[in-house]
């Protein structure tokens, strides 16, 4: 199971955490990853100045925006999915 936690602390929230979460939900649904990805919120991941912070298992990615998730975030998720499930 891959655990994704999207920061909804003040700074990330204002930069669009929830839009990012909606996009991620869409992505999970499109690829039928419901059983391999768990999506939840985190209160603050400690990288408040630089885009939205997202924790994937123990790795924190920051600088995510709703416009760049396909380059910044999705490749990391796919790499992890591939490593664990081989798909």
């Amino acid at each position: 199971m891959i655990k994704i936690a999207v920061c909804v602390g003040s700074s990330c929230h204002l930069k669009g955490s929830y839009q990012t979460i909606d996009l991620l939900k869409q992505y999970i649904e499109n690829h039928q990853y419901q059983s391999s990805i768990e999506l939840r919120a985190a209160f603050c991941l400690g990288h408040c100045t630089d885009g939205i912070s997202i924790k994937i298992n123990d790795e924190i990615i920051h600088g995510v925006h709703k416009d760049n998730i396909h380059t910044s975030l999705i490749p990391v998720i796919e790499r992890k999915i591939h490593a664990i499930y081989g798909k």
Partner: protein
Amino acid sequence: MKPFDTKVQLLKYRVLKEVAKLAIHDSLSSGMLDVHKAIIPTNKATMRCCVYKERAIVNERVKLATNSSIEEFESWIQVIKIACDECPVGGYEVTSGCRGCIAHRCEQACKKNAITFDNHQKAHIDKSKCIECGLCSKVCPYNAIHNFKRPCELACKVNAITMDADKAASIDHSKCITCGACVYQCPFGAIMDKSELVPAIQLIKKSRYNTKYKVYAVVAPAIASQYEREELGQILKAIKNLGFYNLVEAALGADLATVLETEELLTKPVLTSSCCPSFVEYIKKHHPKVEKHISHTPSPMALVGKIIKTSDPNAKVVFIGPCIAKKQEAKLSHVKPYVDAVITFEELQAWIDAADINLSSLVPEHLDNASYFGRIFAKSGGLSKAVIQCLKESEKDVSLVNPIIASGIDQCKVALLKLSVNKLGGNFLEGMACSGGCIGGPCNLTHEEKDEKEIEWYGQSAYEQNIHSSIRLFRDDTQ
């Protein structure tokens, strides 16, 4: 900082501040006994009969301010016996204001024929007949009949305070609901709440700047009534600067509680609210017949603690609010895992000032975890309004809820008595032990007329549009 309502609060704050300073500098055990030197710097008594008594009382305050011991757990509220002034306890008495009038309204009003008149037509109360109903006092045109009851006893609506053999106040903990009214009302400050300020400071210190674990502050929405609007953001920043990793609104827990309580309401014929721990305690201790109606929904504090610890299992949670009963609630077995310490606004102010934080230089911090409806939980009626909103958001019929709102124990008592004979007149009883709701809490720095308006403003400035948008990611974590 706003001034306090009373000098008693100021005195308590000064002691707490010295205690916080010692805790911050790890010198509590060596410095505890010298706190009185900072509070009473001269040899001249200003509050009591002599400076030695003043110092002895300060030492007792320090003991309570540093005592969060659960082993000897009795109650969070304790009487400082030597500070109790042993006020008169005569009950209703005719004072020299009686002019010996001809009307004798007092005699007419007394249902027990307890009023007699002497040769000068002055009234006297036969104490063997008097039932302390106060009707004579109400009708006297000269206000000459006075109730000589102790302020603590008057404040205690559950009759938990009596006089011990030494005439000092004594709390019957089997009746006490930890509302804290006596703490706020005693004019001599002889009743005080124990404190978790020291454990909270130590939690932060031991976290090594949030590297060993992270410490979250959960802030009650009543805070908006405590500071000027422009100052509020700086106070939030100051809390963060005390060393907290992050601040989360208790109002987010309120949004969650609304949804859970609304769902519960739809499955039960009648429900009494569970967010005020004193009200819950009041039902359990004084109206056990209706205990079955208490909502099983956890309080906003417990819910927000739970979702923080779900997202970060090593997290420590400190709740900051105006309430003493929350200290007790946090030790209940079903709440304990989610809340590590509870401090009050008074204790927070002492901590901020002990840490020498200069408010005016701070860049304001904002909170954005909750909706308008979660934030207005701080005032009476807020919960009911939120439940109606929740039904609207779920496209259900709003007439499914018929709320009865009770604020202050007197109103709660009337509503609960009605409920016990199935005559509540509604299906949802929102009860708050403090008059006006949490904004009337005992450990607010001040209680002012405009507090309700300030909460309304704070609610309006919430970032989340409605209840469901505020909880959308956390709903599952409450299971």
